[in-house]
């Protein structure tokens, strides 16, 4: 049976309405997810925890992203934005990242 309903099932992949400039960041976020989850079988709108993630892996992702951009972010940013697309948007809107991108 595959009737998991709206919970726990991936919605269709994001089609990229928010402009091309987010693509490099999205690719980086996605690549961090792949590294820690050790698979790439998840959609860009899929919840990290449904994809097999846990909070220790969140720390690994955020430490790596922070180091890459030379910025500090609170872990709760991830918990509030637990999909690739949401996290990409949240990071892009984050003051520290904006400053780092300048």
């Amino acid at each position: 049976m595959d009737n998991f309903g709206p919970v726990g099932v991936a919605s269709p992949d994001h089609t990229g309405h928010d402009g091309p400039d987010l693509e490099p960041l999205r690719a980086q976020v996605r690549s961090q997810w792949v590294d820690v989850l050790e698979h790439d079988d998840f959609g860009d709108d899929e919840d990290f925890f449904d994809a097999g993630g846990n909070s220790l892996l969140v720390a690994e992702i955020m430490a790596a992203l922070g180091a890459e951009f030379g910025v500090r972010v609170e872990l709760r940013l991830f918990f509030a934005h637990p999909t690739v697309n949401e996290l990409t948007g949240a990071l892009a809107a984050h003051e520290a990242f904006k400053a780092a991108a300048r």
Partner: protein
Amino acid sequence: MSASPTSVQGAPWSGWNETTRPFRDDATVPELIAEAARRHPDHPAIVDSDKRVLTHGELDRLSNRLARLLRELGLGRGSSVGVYGERGAPALVGMLAVLKAGASYVPLDPAWPASRVVGLLDRLDVTAVLTDRASLPSVQEFRWEVPSLRHVLCPDIPEEFSWSATFRREQVADLSDPPSGSADPLEAAGFQVCQDHVARFVRSATSAERPSVLEIGCGSGLVVEALAPWASRYVAVDPSPESVARSKEAGDRAGGEVEGVVCFAHEAAERVHGPFDVVVLAGTVRFLPDLDHLTGVLDSLVGLLADDGVIVLADLVGPGLGAGSGLRVPPRYVERLPELLPGVAHAGVHRRRAGEFTGEPAERYDAVIRVEPSRDRAAAPGREPLWTGHHIGLRPAGPLATGPTADDACYTIFTSGSTGAPKGVVVGHRAVVNLIDCMNRTYEVGPADEILFTVSFCFDLSVYDMFGVLAAGATVRVASAADLAEPDTLVDLLEQESITIWDSAPATLGMVMPFVEAREPAGRDTLRLVLLSGDWIPVPLPDQVRGAFPHAEVVALGGATETTVWSNHHRVGEVDLTRPSFPYGQPMQNTRSYVLDSGLRPCPLGEEGDLYVAGAGVGVGYAGAAALTAARFLPDPGARRPGERMYRTGDRARWLPNGDLEFLGRLDDQVKVRGHRIELGEVQSALLQCPGVRAASVVAPVGRRGRTLAAFYVPTAEPLAKAELVSALRALVPSHMIPSRIVALDELPLTSTGKIDRAALLGRL
């Protein structure tokens, strides 16, 4: 049949249980800490994130004053005091003061759902709660739900009244001044006063034909208009001169004379002379700073009433409603006013009838307060204040003459319960003193040490972090909630301050290590002792830690809340990365472990059995649960003193030929998720309380870096959105019990014996 002592003790293959070591078995926790204060009065005891320092001497004196107040309130040996507050120095001072008074503390987390806190306080018949400024509004809302709760103390408010500091005359006057052109300040604030309803309600509440009326907070005169023509006298009070002027005009228009007085609600009793048949507060309560202020206002107004007079509170909003910002008044508060205010004979809550209102006003309610005859009011004792730092500061700083004994309870800490209700584990002073003695001696913890305190004080790891470290004359550096939210900040603290000890579940350190490793090292020489416990320790973690902090020794510890934090410890040496886990190591001093069969006979070497822990660390039992206590705390066949008991851990284990113990799983559905001990049954029980859930089962799959919680449920109709279920769960259980995955199924798979097939569920993830 129980085994004879010799057969339990004499496990010839192991020196495991040769642990007897003298310690101060008549000492108590506050004695140890007071002795440290005498040795090092000027040494920092507590440092917080604002870099405020409390020395050992200051801690001693502050906690003495608070302990004296607690004792005056009748709290001493045998009482338990709730501690409900943010992580910070005030909570630590509070817990120590509770112990000095002779009582035991019950830590409660403000992040827990209020219903859980209320249930726990109620079960333990707690009579007093210590809180802080940030958490006080919640206590003021929920305290009325706990019949036993009489005293609330908020030591970090220095003023006499909780509201003094927040109550600014200009601010309230501004709020009350109607913006020009707008009809009423309440309406301007988006709050519609139900004018006709209030008028009818007031008329029905009094038996006087032409009553004298005092209105507190008359605003622009809506109620004046409706009531003044009917009153024999009408006094309108408001802090805004403009409102008072408008109300007088409204009275003139309606054909009733109105006396106006410009003052605040709590000043009215001094400025206005009674008696009145009716005092009305219509919508006004929303503008008051807190419930304590309201209580004070009502107390003063009671004195203005005629013998058959009433106070009418109209348009009250309960805590269940999110409408607007103002003060929310729990109906239980109103109902308990006769206990609170000696002059009040009765206080009734009047819900609004269905269909009378639409929208938000239908959810509001009204209340009528009736008083004792004047002569009884005059003789009545005053009400008990909210106890603040002002009252505490009036007490002497010297120690109380008496305190607890080593046999008394020290704390009650709650752990997850399989039936849905948390279990309160009661631990006595002697057990904690043994733990402190063992740790401080073994690891040479002394005044030069400083611990980074990251653990919630609702978990028993905090017991050593606070009391063990303070007893050593060392320093507790309290990490704030904000520090804990950002691992980089914790790394800053480890690098920039002189932290020497870390103590946490492996997961907490596991979340920090990626940030440590992502940074250039700077100042990593002070950390010397890393204590890890509460969960399986990832085998590579100690090497990671020692690689980053060259002077750090890593110690793996194990134990249960029921046996006082830790029962065994293992200094991690060279790590064999092919091993699945670290050994149990050595027993703590005066601690014994037995592997027994179902007849309580010792299992032979290598044979699996139930793990029991005995000795000085065994707790008192479960609070208010005699049957459960009797089932888990049994007579110790190897007792060293008469009456000693052993604790059935629920772990399966066996002795190895090298004298070590091997852990072989659990007898029950208890799991560890990120160091949190969780009964899957408690999570399942919470899910079943969520609307729309017909059946549920919870599993704890092991993924990379440890376990997570996953829930499966069968909806009564359509599957629910995950966010909806999560928010329903948040009202029932702490956040660490909320599954990270929630999956809807048509039905739960069953095994051939009719039980839920958890293995099949795990396969679906």
